[in-house]
């Protein structure tokens, strides 16, 4: 049976939605699964009834794309006219028309039971807030450098649940997938969902940093901004482009609080605003044993070593001179998590999910612990990880927190093969973690 694949409705009241030609993510004739994202467009908006003073839909997000997935599986056959290529598949020359045909799906099922919805493509909206408007890149899905990326799909009458990920690299691959566009998250999630990812550029999301962001006033942010500007001005010719890039990025990220942010959503029903996030995903790996605290302004900062190296000499000098290093015990980290989860509970009520740490290593063969001074968690990485993992259980026992147990998953399928350095996972672990995350979200929907 042939099922024609049509775009289906997408609306923004007061605007025409323009789309580019299609860009395919697979070959014509390829078999595809139900809900597999197979193509995408860039979209833009044209005012029709809206006032020039009205903000543009998804105005902060200059990267807006619509990816699409057939609702049933089968052999996908392209309509070649839908993909003119070149700039015609980048620039929005076509007004969105729900009846536009992209191709058809050949299924083995010869019954006539398919309803009209079978050929209506599932639309996955992708939006990226550029770290700088200069980062306009036209290739691929969600191209360029973003301070926030998100994707969502839901049908008319549905309300999506939103998961915000604030982890570092042990959550980046899990959330963003191989193409950086959440496709793997949506591969097995057809329930109405929005996934949001905020990177660790250049500030890593340790609990004290997030807590400071939640509680920071506009006046405090202006003081931070003035301090940084003064530092770079004083550095004079010593400051480099890398310093200014770091400073701009840091201020851009610190002036917002992703936990409080709400989201404008585009869908078949039109534009709506949702959020803030229903669940916040954190990583225990983001919690360092020492954290920087500004000597006069008091805010906390955690910059990963390779991001410190990416800053210029003036910023590195500022980090060394304007901040003091505060050592954190496991109890300190516990207290920081408790303060953060309590503040989130009070502020948005979001459920907190924390990815724990791998706490065993096949490369270790300690047969006698006598050579190690007490407390051994100060020296031995795996004991430190075990203590931190146990600490999470103490927190989860009394708070709105769920542990995402990568420690158990890696132990089950093999740490040496799938988690060689204890942080960076194989796709197999990432897939299991996604399933766990979706199961947690399913529990929150009830």
């Amino acid at each position, binding site marked *: 049976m042939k099922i024609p694949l049509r775009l289906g409705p997408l609306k923004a009241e007061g605007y025409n939605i323009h789309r580019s030609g299609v860009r395919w993510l697979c070959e014509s004739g390829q078999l595809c699964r139900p809900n597999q994202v197979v193509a995408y467009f860039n979209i833009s908006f044209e005012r029709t009834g809206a006032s020039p003073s009205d903000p543009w839909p998804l105005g902060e997000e200059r990267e807006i794309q619509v990816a699409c997935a057939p609702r049933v599986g089968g052999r996908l056959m392209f309509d070649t006219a839908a993909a003119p290529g070149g700039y015609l598949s980048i620039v929005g020359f076509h007004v969105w028309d729900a009846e536009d045909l992209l191709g058809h799906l050949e299924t083995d099922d010869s019954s006539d039971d398919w309803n009209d919805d079978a050929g209506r493509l599932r639309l996955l909206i992708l939006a990226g807030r550029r770290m700088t408007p200069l980062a306009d890149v036209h290739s691929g899905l969600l191209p360029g450098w973003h301070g926030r990326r998100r994707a969502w799909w839901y049908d008319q009458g549905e309300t999506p649940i939103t998961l915000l990920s604030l982890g570092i690299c042990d959550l980046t691959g899990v959330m963003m997938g191989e193409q950086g566009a959440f496709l793997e998250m949506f591969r097995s999630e057809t329930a109405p969902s929005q996934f949001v990812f905020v990177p660790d550029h250049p500030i890593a999301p340790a609990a004290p940093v997030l807590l400071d962001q939640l509680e920071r006033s506009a006046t405090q942010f202006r003081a931070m901004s003035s301090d940084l500007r003064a530092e770079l001005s004083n550095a004079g010719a010593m400051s480099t482009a890398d310093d200014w890039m770091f400073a701009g990025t840091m201020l851009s990220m610190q002036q917002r609080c992703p936990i409080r942010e709400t989201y404008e959503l585009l869908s078949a029903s039109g534009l709506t605003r949702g959020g803030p996030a229903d669940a916040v995903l954190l990583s225990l790996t983001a919690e360092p044993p020492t954290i920087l605290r500004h000597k006069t302004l008091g805010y906390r900062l955690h910059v990963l070593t390779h991001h410190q190296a990416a800053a210029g000499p003036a910023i590195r000098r500022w980090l060394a001179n304007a901040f003091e290093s505060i050592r954190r015990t496991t109890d300190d980290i516990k207290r920081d998590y408790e303060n953060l989860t309590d503040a989130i509970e009070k502020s948005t009520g979001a459920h907190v999910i924390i990815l724990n740490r791998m706490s065993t290593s096949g490369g270790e*063969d*300690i047969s006698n612990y006598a050579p190690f001074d007490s407390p051994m968690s100060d020296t031995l*990485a795996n004991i430190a990880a075990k203590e931190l993992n146990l600490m999470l259980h103490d927190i989860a026992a009394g708070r709105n927190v769920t542990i995402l147990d990568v420690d158990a998953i890696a132990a089950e399928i093999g740490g040496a093969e799938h988690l060689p350095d204890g942080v960076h996972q194989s796709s197999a672990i990432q897939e299991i973690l996604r399933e766990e995350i979706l199961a947690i979200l399913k529990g929150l929907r009830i």
Partner: protein
Amino acid sequence: MILEFRLPLLIPHMSEALIECLYAVPDATLKAGDRLVDLRVDLSSAFSQDCPPISYFRIILRENAILREFRLNCGQYCKVGELIAEFSSVAEGRDPRAPRGVRFATAGIMHHQGMWTAQNR
């Protein structure tokens, strides 16, 4: 008898390690349980990415030995299998017979301020 410590394969895919700390001096008599060296393994030499997969390890002796020499200093890189230290066995003195590997244990450790990378940022 001569005993050798060569860089072992601490984790899959590693090709080299950085010497972070050396815990003994030549002619020192080391006991089983004594620290020998801290190492840093950075897998980004194998997997190109910005977030470097870095691990730290401590090598601990599992037998008594006299350190003859370290072949490398802190801050230097060594390849898997490369000779890092030579020992004499305590029982047999400086016997020139064919060397064997010294017995050691490996522990994953936290980065600390005594490391070469902490002092040379």
